[in-house]
């Protein structure tokens, strides 16, 4: 018979909820305002959202020390704080890109911003807990909002993208639920901490079922991280959605997914379950190789970048496999540095957004579009080039350092062969990044007027590019502070 539950407010430790709460309030407020005040301007929405994101951020910083709360459902440790930080920063960067030169329907809608904020909340919950329910909840909240945001772009491709993403998401949700069910059945708990205790106590018997749970979870998370074979949505969704959103998708949902993955797989890796290790290695290798190879033959820059982000995810997966402080810090270092560059790159595409598809019937940003760009707008070309080289892991730009530290962690864990495979992959990857550079710098220009490359640009967006570029180029200086901070946070949360 179930005994009644007594709750004492103090133990709820509601302070931990404030960041999400702030944002939730913001979202609701925005909708209400929209109801009463007609035709609010884009700028208002953006600034309003930005404001609340910043409030959220301050609230996040306000929380001190790792602690649990709300029936021990919330878990705010260093890692979650980090992840939330990343999420909020990139959200801030993203939302500003809405202030584009060209008008877009979605940016006029309050719902867009409200949904955006809800999505952020979703991700925040996802990373700020080790309870499967809450993870699931956050995941779905975020995803559902995200589907809608994509669809709001309001073009055929956007809908197609949304539907594809949605359907696969639904299936993934099913898998997640199944995974939770299996684990619950085995351990009688839906809290990862407890689950791990029980499993370890029982030495992971019965193996087949435990692993079955792992498999379902792997695929469910893999879908978020776009790990092969669940990656198929990525290029299509990126192509369908607006450039900045694509950039956002390649950073934020993944960091959230990564955190969950770290939390979940740590159970098995910390007690050397070889199977899990091997499977992760296998998937990581497949993911980066397949993505890189496929990226070689893409005609559209955005699709190419989509595959590249898959490859990057595969890259990071290796670190999850390795586990331990260095690896986990490596993940965050990598992702923070990757965030700036990637958002920068996608923003460049956003700037180059042009109403008519002049060069290709289907693609927005075919390579041909950029040929000879250096002649007509050298500045843009150079910046874009730098972003490309950075993504290729060219030293001394940002991603290189992440890569360095990440590979180092892999090497230190003794997986030298894996490390070799990784560098070989990055060598292959160079080709498709360089393809764009070749077009921009070595082909002859197809058009004389340079501003087609800046059709959609505006001061705020330029600022975004400036910021990202700055961090990309001068990364070498920031690596140390970031690294030490990240490491400290990771250690504090006991990974």
């Amino acid at each position, binding site marked *: 018979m179930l005994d009644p539950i007594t709750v004492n407010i103090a133990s709820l430790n509601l302070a931990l909820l404030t960041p999400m709460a702030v944002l939730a309030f913001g979202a609701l407020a925005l909708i209400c305002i929209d109801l009463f005040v007609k035709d609010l301007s884009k700028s208002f929405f953006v600034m309003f959202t930005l404001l609340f994101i910043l409030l959220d951020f301050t609230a996040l910083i306000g929380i001190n020390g790792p602690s649990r709360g709300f029936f021990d459902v919330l878990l705010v440790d260093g890692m979650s704080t980090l992840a939330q930080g990343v999420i909020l920063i990139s959200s801030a960067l993203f939302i500003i890109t809405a202030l584009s030169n060209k008008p877009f329907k979605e940016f006029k809608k309050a719902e867009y911003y409200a949904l955006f904020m809800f999505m952020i909340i979703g991700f925040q919950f996802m990373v700020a807990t080790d309870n499967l329910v809450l993870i699931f909840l956050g995941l779905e909240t975020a995803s559902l909002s995200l589907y809608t945001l994509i*669809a709001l772009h309001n073009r055929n491709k956007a809908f197609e993208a949304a539907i594809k993403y949605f359907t696969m998401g639904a299936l993934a949700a099913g898998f997640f639920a199944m995974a939770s*069910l299996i684990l619950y059945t085995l351990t009688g708990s839906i809290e990862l901490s407890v689950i791990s205790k029980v499993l370890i106590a029982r030495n992971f018997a019965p193996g087949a079922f435990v692993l079955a749970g792992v498999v379902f979870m792997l695929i469910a998370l893999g879908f978020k991280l776009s790990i092969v074979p669940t990656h198929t949505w990525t290029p*299509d969704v990126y192509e369908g959605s607006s450039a900045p959103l694509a950039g956002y998708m390649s950073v934020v949902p993944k960091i959230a997914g990564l955190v969950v993955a770290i939390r979940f797989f740590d159970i098995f890796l910390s007690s050397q379950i070889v199977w899990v290790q091997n499977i992760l290695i296998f998937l990581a290798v497949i993911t980066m190789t397949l993505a890189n190879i496929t990226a070689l033959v893409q005609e559209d820059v955005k699709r190419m970048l989509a595959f590249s982000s898959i490859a990057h995810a595969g890259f990071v997966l290796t670190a999850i496999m390795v586990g331990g402080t260095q690896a986990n810090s490596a993940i965050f270092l990598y992702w923070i540095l990757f965030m700036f560059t990637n958002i920068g790159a996608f923003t460049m595409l956003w700037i180059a957004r042009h109403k008519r598809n002049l060069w290709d019937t289907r693609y927005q940003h075919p390579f041909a579009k950029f040929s000879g760009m250096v002649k007509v707008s050298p500045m843009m070309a150079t910046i874009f080039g730098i972003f490309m080289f950075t993504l290729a892991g060219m030293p001394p730009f940002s991603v290189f350092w992440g890569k360095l530290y990440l590979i180092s962690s892999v090497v230190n864990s003794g997986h030298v062969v894996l490390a070799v495979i990784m560098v070989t992959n990055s060598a292959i990857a160079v080709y498709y990044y360089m393809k764009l550079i070749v077009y921009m710098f070595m082909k002859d220009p197809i058009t004389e007027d340079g501003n087609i490359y800046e059709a959609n640009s505006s001061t705020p967006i330029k600022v975004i590019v400036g910021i990202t570029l700055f961090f990309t180029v001068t990364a070498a200086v920031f690596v140390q502070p970031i690294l030490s901070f990240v490491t400290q946070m990771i250690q504090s949360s006991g990974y």
Partner: protein
Amino acid sequence: MITLTHYLVLSGILFSIGIVGVLRRKNLLMLFFSTEILLNAVNIGFAAVSKYYGDLSGQIFSFFIIAIAASEVAVGLGLLVLWYKRSGTIDLDSLQMMKG
């Protein structure tokens, strides 16, 4: 006497049915139904196990699943309707603009 195993098996079977549906169906609406079946299969499992352990969290989970399923349907149907308006069909194969 129906033991936990029966429930789990049932849930498993349902889940498989759901999966097969997801794989086979070309009609978006049907496909969404299949995903619902998936989730509900899991629900059964949770309810049963929660009863078995005498622990509420399972049932809580299934409640949340129901809620999420609902919202999924909301969003999903929304998209579906939009798509129908645009393309006049809800056949999966009509979604082939983007490939390669």
